[in-house]
């Protein structure tokens, strides 16, 4: 008897957690499928399935452009920060130098810095960057100025985080593996490429996804540094979706947009789920 109660208790707890986490998303999916007036009638199941919100966003609005912008910024930012922090993590976890722990501490401190604190300074720098950029390049590439600047600032804010996480992972790789490779005659660079990279792949994926989500969801900088509709990223894009009249909030379109931008993240996470955090060094050392 006790076993049955245990099971009921366990599953009901799980259900509560799942409902709590998934319901908002479910409701936004539902809302996105409803027409403009149906949105304002609370219900648990959609009364009609109407793709008009999606049609509007994908074919009549510049929303696809904002997705591309976000993809561009996320890809550039994540690849640069992961590359830099991979090497930084190696030196911070393996190379002995003076002030190493101080350095790590500073990195941690920087990652606690609120974005808003540097916003005004960043904006001034952005203006200078724009001047500089316009002086060297042709006018045709003007459009990417804001995006490039976003990449730069995101990378700045991401690197402390990715360095910290990757350093922790790399510290977990047994030192003997590296020493065995040194004795085998491998140079540091070769060890990083042939030994650490394959071992660290799951950790790198995990970190990359977290960094990617952070960039994908960023709003403050994106709002500040983009001026035209053609260089909005998704978060700003969603915020600026207009209704047909001034006082209407177009919930249907906003929810459809949210679903569209969430789906890629969910897919990526599901695809890589198996690789994330799966046994870093299984079989290498005793066990």
């Amino acid at each position, binding site marked *: 008897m006790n076993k049955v109660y245990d099971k009921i208790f366990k599953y009901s707890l799980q259900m509560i957690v799942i409902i709590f986490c998934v319901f908002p998303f479910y409701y936004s999916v539902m809302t996105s499928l409803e027409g403009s007036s149906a949105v304002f009638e609370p219900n648990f199941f959609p009364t009609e399935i109407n793709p008009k919100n999606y049609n509007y966003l994908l074919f009549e609005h510049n929303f696809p452009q904002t997705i591309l912008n976000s993809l561009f910024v996320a890809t550039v930012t994540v690849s640069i920060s992961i590359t830099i922090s991979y090497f930084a993590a190696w030196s911070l976890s393996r190379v002995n130098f003076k002030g190493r722990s101080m350095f790590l501490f500073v990195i941690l401190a920087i990652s606690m810095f609120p974005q808003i604190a540097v916003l005004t300074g960043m904006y001034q720098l952005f203006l200078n960057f724009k001047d500089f950029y316009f002086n060297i390049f042709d006018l045709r590439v003007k459009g990417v100025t804001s995006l490039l600047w976003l990449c730069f600032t995101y990378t700045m804010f991401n690197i402390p985080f990715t360095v910290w996480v990757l350093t922790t992972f790399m510290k977990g790789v047994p030192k003997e593996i590296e020493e065995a490779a040194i004795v085998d005659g491998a140079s540091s660079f070769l060890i990083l490429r042939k030994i650490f990279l394959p071992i660290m792949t799951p950790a790198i994926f995990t970190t990359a996804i977290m960094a990617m989500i952070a960039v994908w969801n960023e709003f403050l900088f994106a709002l500040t540094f983009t001026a035209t509709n053609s260089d909005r990223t998704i978060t700003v894009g969603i915020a600026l979706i207009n209704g047909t009249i001034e006082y209407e909030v177009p919930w249907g379109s906003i929810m459809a947009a949210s679903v569209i931008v969430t789906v890629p993240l969910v897919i990526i996470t599901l695809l890589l789920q198996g690789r994330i955090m799966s046994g870093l060094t299984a*079989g*290498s050392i*005793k066990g």
Partner: protein
Amino acid sequence: MADININTVNKYFGDVHVIKDVSLDIKSQSFTVLVGPSGCGKSTMLRMIAGLEDINSGTISIDGQVVNDLPPKQRNIAMVFQSYALYPHMTVFDNMAFGLKLEKRSKDEINERVNEAARILQIEDYLQRKPKQLSGGQRQRVAIGRAITRKPKVFLFDEPLSNLDAALRVQMRVELAKLHNELEATMIYVTHDQTEAMTLADDIVVLDTGIVSQKGSPLELYDRPNNMFVGGFIGSPKMNFISSKILSKSSDATEVDIMGMSKISVSKMSASSSEGDSVTLGIRPEHLVVNGDSDGSWESKVFVVEKLGDVTYLYLEKDGEPLVAETEGHSEIKVGDTVKVGFPAGRCQLFDSSGQAFK
């Protein structure tokens, strides 16, 4: 072919002086075992020879060439780690071929050498497996195989068997001895297991807090330890130490008393000792004579009896002095019995108050 000379080497970790003026000559093709308790610096010694640790002063030369500033790959060495340290993402074959590939050997040569090593270690069937699909013993073989394929002049083993279970350890020990005969390479082996040291070594180097306590063949260390540390470290169970006093000295022997119960004349001398000095008498459990005729003897009560089948250990005590005696396998002696323990003079060691042995 590859003598190793270590000359007054010092090593500090921060302020801690871990290796103190150590000098050692290791003969080519010999099997040298470094033993000592944890923290005595034996692994550090090995890592310094490998080039994984810098040396603060002194020189290490391999084959006549000073290697202080050479990176590990130019020292012609291979190392086997306690934790195996296999590359987890590579197959067994790739693990063993990694060093050869870095040396830019031809494909045929790599195949040939890896297969040869696999044959010697009997891991031919596992070449395409990943390390995580292997058992502990198999992994350790792969780690040894990785060392063999490179045909180094010197093999360095850092407690390679300590992660294996007891039965496997004995088996691998025998195989390592065979391997040494087969490869004719210089091998240096670090362990804290004195059975491994006794069975494998041509020479044992006993390290104690960064100093070479004694170097010699296993039996030399067993029969004639230089000091109490070596006497106590080599042999299991430990050598018994009993406080004693010099009663008289003659030209070739020293007469000591055993706690006022009896006296024996040990044919060992120390120039610096004189009558009345406190000394420590050392005797191994297997040399004590239980209930038999011997030079000096004692009576003592038995506190614990350990029957191992082939031998029985008796734990005795007399006036606060613990004593372990070994007797035949199926002993009738029970806890609480009183036994007579004899001290054959020829088997006794004497150590002065600083722990140095009488010669």
